[in-house]
């Protein structure tokens, strides 16, 4: 990890759902100022849970952090409400969209600016989001529930950006988006990171993209961090290549051939 300031420090947290299901078993990770960090891992690895723990949204899922600590710029934040976190600039884009179904796209976006007061700034920000996602502009008056899956995803991302955050936790931003839009989303990330110094934590399945844009990566499996390192190193790791990038050797494997023999992950054995 480089020497820049650590803004967010997750220290050995353990998360239990429903008092009995232990999901995170001591997860530690760090987010440097102005960094883009990718959090990778298979289904059920615990990425979403980690993000929820950071933004304190576990309660509604009947989960709780039972061990470890989370610090934001040196301040313990486990007991802050999500709203207070947003005020401190931390905002999460939830997995599975969670748009406000009855509100129109535009209302959804405006609600995202709840914590802000300057009308002009908000309007400018709205324009920016529409610029990022022109599709949203054409659908601005539709109720969010009646837009397509991808449109909702854009709406959710746009909504989070409306709060003018300094740290964004993105949970599977590319899910359900068309390839160019995926590209667009990552460009936005890069753009904001460069221009406004926004820090990102990306939980992604699209490892390829994530590692291309991130500086640093963590790989999770069944509630533990199993590997971490600078993004380009990870991208060249043989295991990562095979399991997360779908490349055998250096060739991309066709999905048609997956029926042939598959190797199991070493660390699960």
């Amino acid at each position, binding site marked *: 990890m480089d020497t820049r300031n650590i803004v967010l420090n997750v220290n050995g947290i353990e998360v239990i759902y429903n008092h009995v299901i232990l999901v995170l078993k001591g997860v530690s990770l760090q987010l440097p100022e102005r960094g883009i960090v990718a959090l990778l891992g298979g289904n059920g690895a615990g990425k979403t849970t980690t993000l929820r723990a950071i*933004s304190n*949204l576990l*309660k*509604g*899922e009947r989960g709780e952090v039972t061990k470890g600590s989370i610090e934001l710029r040196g301040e313990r934040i486990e007991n802050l*409400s*999500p*709203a*207070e*976190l*947003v*005020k401190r600039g931390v*905002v*999460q*884009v*939830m997995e599975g969209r*969670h*748009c*406000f*179904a*009855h*509100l129109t796209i535009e*209302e*959804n976006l*405006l*609600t*995202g600016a*709840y*914590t802000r007061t300057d009308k002009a700034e908000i309007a400018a920000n709205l324009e920016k989001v529409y610029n990022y996602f022109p599709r949203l502009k054409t659908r601005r008056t539709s*109720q969010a*529930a*009646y837009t397509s899956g991808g449109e909702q995803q854009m709406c959710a991302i746009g*909504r*989070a950006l*409306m*709060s003018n955050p300094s740290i964004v936790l993105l949970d599977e931003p590319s899910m359900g988006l068309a390839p160019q839009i995926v590209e667009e989303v990552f460009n936005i990330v890069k753009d904001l990171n460069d221009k406004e110094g926004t820090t990102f934590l990306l939980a992604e399945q699209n490892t390829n993209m994530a590692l291309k844009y991130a500086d640093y990566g963590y790989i999770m499996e069944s509630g533990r961090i199993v590997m971490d390192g600078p993004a380009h190193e990870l991208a060249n790791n043989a295991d990562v290549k095979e399991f997360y990038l779908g490349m055998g050797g250096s060739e991309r494997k066709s999905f048609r051939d997956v029926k042939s023999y598959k190797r199991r992950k070493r660390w699960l054995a």
Partner: protein
Amino acid sequence: MAFFLETLIGGLMAGMLYSLVALGFVLIFKASGVFNFAQGAMVLFAALAMARFSEWIPKWTGIDNAIVANLAAFVIAGVFMFAVAWLIERLVLRHLVNQEGATLLMATLGITYFLEGVGQTIFGSDIYKIDVGMPKDPVFLFESMFQGGVLVNKEDVIAAGIAATLVLLLSIFFQKTKTGRALRAVADDHQAAQSIGIPLNRIWVIVWCVAGVVALVAGMIWGSKLGVQFSLTTVALRALPVVILGGLTSVPGAIIGGLIIGVGEKLSEVYLGPFVGGGIEIWFAYVLALVFLLFRPQGLFGEKIIDRV
């Protein structure tokens, strides 16, 4: 004809009074997705507080001025409702974020029992009087046109006026302000609302407070009509068809629904009742609401129920 008009007007007035209670339901539902069964108990609680304080204040302070006593009692009752809202948020809602509708509904039923118990313990379970100087006697309109005139109740007219004003103010609040939008967002998805920084806790205290004040006004008017007693909670049952007919999420719907139900049930009782032995108004109101729902399952002005894969 005069009688028909009388019934119609009576129905409209009764409907406005239902709206006032319905409004409480709508407010809370719209802002948090909670179907607040405790609204009836809140009306009782507020009315009890108001009635007893307006009786106690002159006794304690020796100031024997009805207006002062009533005003002070209103304010104190308002403070009580604020305390109730705050406690409900602290002790109940906060712990039930993101739970299903049915669970929340039951929690409000629990609150109902609690409020009924507390209210009667603090304030007693006798019949108490609220006298805010509402005129009790009828007036007769159009006496030149109809023999005997058309009877209208002044008290009802005033009450209806108050109800209409409240509804107007609240509609504007919901449609036009940032907070209004935030409230609707909370109702849709607690978690997502939290995730973008809407402070659920504060929002809920605000809404329950507003609902508490609406309950206080409803309690004051109903209480001055009926006397303040446990049975006041049952007006909630009369307001329910209004709520669903107008739409659970629509403030103006509460008014329109109230008018339709009020008129419908009074006309039915007066004109159909005698043929079937009477006493039909309460179920007629529900059936009427049900018939409307068959055509518009979300009520007349409710937000469309979203149903998509």
